[in-house]
């Protein structure tokens, strides 16, 4: 159902994009780009620190190539991804700071009027590389016309599992639906090789799987008009399911923060979890032979689909914003263009073995997704991404509700049995209504 709607939307967006493109400039399929960076420009970039080493290594190589080609000095600062948001906020508030900030999720929707309009660049890139995926537009083209940032991609969160243990539990492949998934989790727990999913305030891991499980059963935080509808029979079903699922988890998941499942998985204590490709990357590049050997047994899968057929999931969306206060808007645009072009973006994706999935359709052909079949599930992270504020508009309310862990707390309360599913849903409804001011 939702896939159909999605396709329709995409088709609609395609038509709209074609209609608004400046046809005068584009005579053939080749997109054109005319931009002359300011003389003597200098750029400061603030980005989240790498999750995988290959990312920053190649990123800095690309930056050096840019500096060499254009003679523009670029300083890159790294901050832990959760610290970028406050820094970016300060920059937006005070009107001073880095020219470009690589942020996450709905950052750009908190201060759209402080960001440089990059519609020309987005159109150029979109035209050249087969179009932007819907999620990119949902976050960064909030009014349907103007782009307030350039999508960088998404750190896909997928099912990470131990092939041998899943097989030993009687499953030849990773289940495609929620019923099969629950059966597998039960079988794994019975074999004393349980899975585990974070239920603490793990900004990345807990938010991603908790949104998936609610969506899989048709629940959602708000409807299109921004009315909170989380307290619904669909959500209750999802919560009852979560409760059963929780019974199969390794102990302690209520306290898990983002690094917990990585550590437990690499130590061989859990057989299934949800995560970025970083666990696999860590195992592959580990100097410890025991952990290194684990890599062969690790595989990935997309989330199982719920009764309604949806396996929509939330992933950590990554954006690139240019702030209006920059003295060198053209140089900043040029920088983003350069970094997004095939020659730079392709090697960068490869160096980080696809930790960041591409936001442009043409990059699906990048060999990183096929060179190792285990990478494949992460390929469509942006294509299939559903923003956490689904099905409403993104902005303060969605960002606030997400940061307040309303969805995670609800699932954790119901799963752990500290509240009944109904109570948990009611409480989430009340908490969310405060953000979406009824």
């Amino acid at each position, binding site marked *: 159902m939702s896939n159909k709607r999605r396709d329709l939307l995409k088709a609609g967006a395609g038509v709209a994009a074609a209609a608004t493109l400046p046809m005068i400039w584009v005579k053939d399929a080749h997109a054109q780009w005319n931009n002359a960076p300011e003389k003597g420009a200098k750029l400061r970039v603030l980005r989240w620190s790498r999750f995988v080493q290959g990312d920053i290594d190649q990123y800095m190589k690309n930056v050096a190539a840019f500096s060499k080609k254009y003679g523009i000095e670029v300083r890159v600062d790294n901050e832990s991804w*959760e610290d970028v948001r406050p820094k970016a906020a300060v920059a937006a508030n005070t009107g001073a700071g880095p020219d470009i900030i690589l942020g996450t999720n709905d950052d750009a929707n908190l201060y759209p009027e402080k960001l440089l309009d990059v519609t020309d660049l987005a159109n150029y890139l979109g035209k050249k590389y087969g179009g932007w995926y819907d999620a990119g537009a949902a976050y960064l083209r909030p009014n349907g016309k103007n782009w307030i940032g350039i999508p960088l991609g998404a750190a896909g969160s997928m099912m990470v599992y131990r092939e041998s243990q899943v097989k030993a539990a009687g499953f030849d492949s990773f289940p495609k639906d929620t019923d099969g998934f629950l059966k597998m989790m039960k079988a794994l727990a019975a074999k004393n090789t349980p899975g585990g999913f974070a239920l*603490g305030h*793990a900004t990345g891991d807990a938010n991603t799987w908790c949104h998936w499980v609610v969506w899989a059963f048709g629940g959602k935080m708000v409807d299109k008009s921004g009315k909170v509808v989380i307290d619904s029979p669909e959500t209750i079903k999802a919560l009852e399911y979560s409760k059963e699922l929780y019974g199969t988890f390794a102990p302690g998941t209520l306290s898990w923060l983002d690094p*917990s499942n990585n550590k437990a998985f690499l130590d061989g204590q859990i057989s299934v979890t949800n995560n970025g490709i970083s666990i696999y990357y860590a195992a592959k590049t580990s100097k410890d032979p025991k952990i290194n050997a684990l890599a062969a047994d690790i595989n990935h899968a997309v989330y199982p689909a719920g009764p309604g057929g949806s396996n929509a999931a939330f992933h950590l969306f990554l954006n690139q914003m240019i702030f209006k206060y920059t003295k060198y808007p053209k140089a900043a645009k040029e920088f983003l263009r350069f970094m997004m072009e095939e020659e730079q973006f392709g090697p960068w994706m490869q160096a980080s073995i696809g930790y960041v999935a591409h936001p442009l359709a043409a990059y699906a052909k990048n060999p990183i997704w096929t060179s190792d079949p285990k990478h494949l599930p992460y390929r469509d992270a942006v294509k299939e991404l559903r923003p956490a504020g689904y099905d409403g508009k993104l902005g303060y309310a969605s960002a606030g509700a997400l940061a307040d862990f309303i969805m995670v707390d609800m699932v954790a309360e119901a799963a752990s049995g500290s509240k009944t599913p109904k109570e948990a849903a009611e409480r989430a409804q009340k*908490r969310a209504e405060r953000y979406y001011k009824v």
Partner: protein
Amino acid sequence: MNSSSFFDNKNTLGLLFLVPAGVLLLLFLTYPLGLGTWLGFTDAKIGRTGEWIGIENFQFLIGDSVARLSLFNTLFYTVVASVLKFGLGLWLALLLNHHLPFKSFIRAVVLLPFIVPTALSAIAFWWIYDSQFSVVSWTLTKMGLIHRYIDFLGDPWLARLSTIAANVWRGVPFVAISLLAGLQTISPSLYEASSIDGATPWQQFWHVTLPMLTPIIAVVMTFSVLFTFTDFQLIYVLTRGGPLNATHLMATLSFQRGIPGGALGEGAALATLMVPFLLAAILFSYFGLQRRAWQQGGSDK
């Protein structure tokens, strides 16, 4: 002539010398505090200056179950941790006041937990409390005492107590060393006089040590309560306020709402709500513990 007399005036000169300190205080203390309080009365969001909305934020917070839970958590955390820190700190101070071998070395070691950056010690505690890798659970399982790892940070009440334990571990040295300094200012002649009068050690403690120590206790415990009430780092590293918001303190919730959540006004209001409690703590220690008459052996009138 005029100018020299201007600078010769002691009052003018005094004021002039006060200016740098005054400017620093205004700039870095009064202004942020004022701004924070003002923000609490606006609907400021990240990237957008707010408009005055009166007490709406406060009304919102009072009706908010998570904010109320955080108030309870904060009070529980502060009271339990402060009482423990005082008891253990005083005990430690009394022990250290005796003549021990390697006295100064031991005193230096006692201070260590206080010197280590909180974030660092919190990570050590994380290792102690981890649900999969807890060194405590590991030892107990190896000894065959338990069969399942203790869910230190996963069970709401256990998580509260675990974070309190970490806070106490960190806070005791400050209390102990400060009280030790206080103990050493008490004149030995008082103890001599009381033992000539036939006082038991317990009577000495009750009638000499404690009254003489109260001014220091008042200051130390005021600081200790303030630090505990506004604790942030420890919780942020250990639990992020989880599980199920059981360890969310007002400071951590204020950050979560204000910065990652973008609701600056609400975060500021929550921080402002901490002020009355802090003021109460200060007033209590100053008026409650600074009782001169009692210190001088009389009774309160």
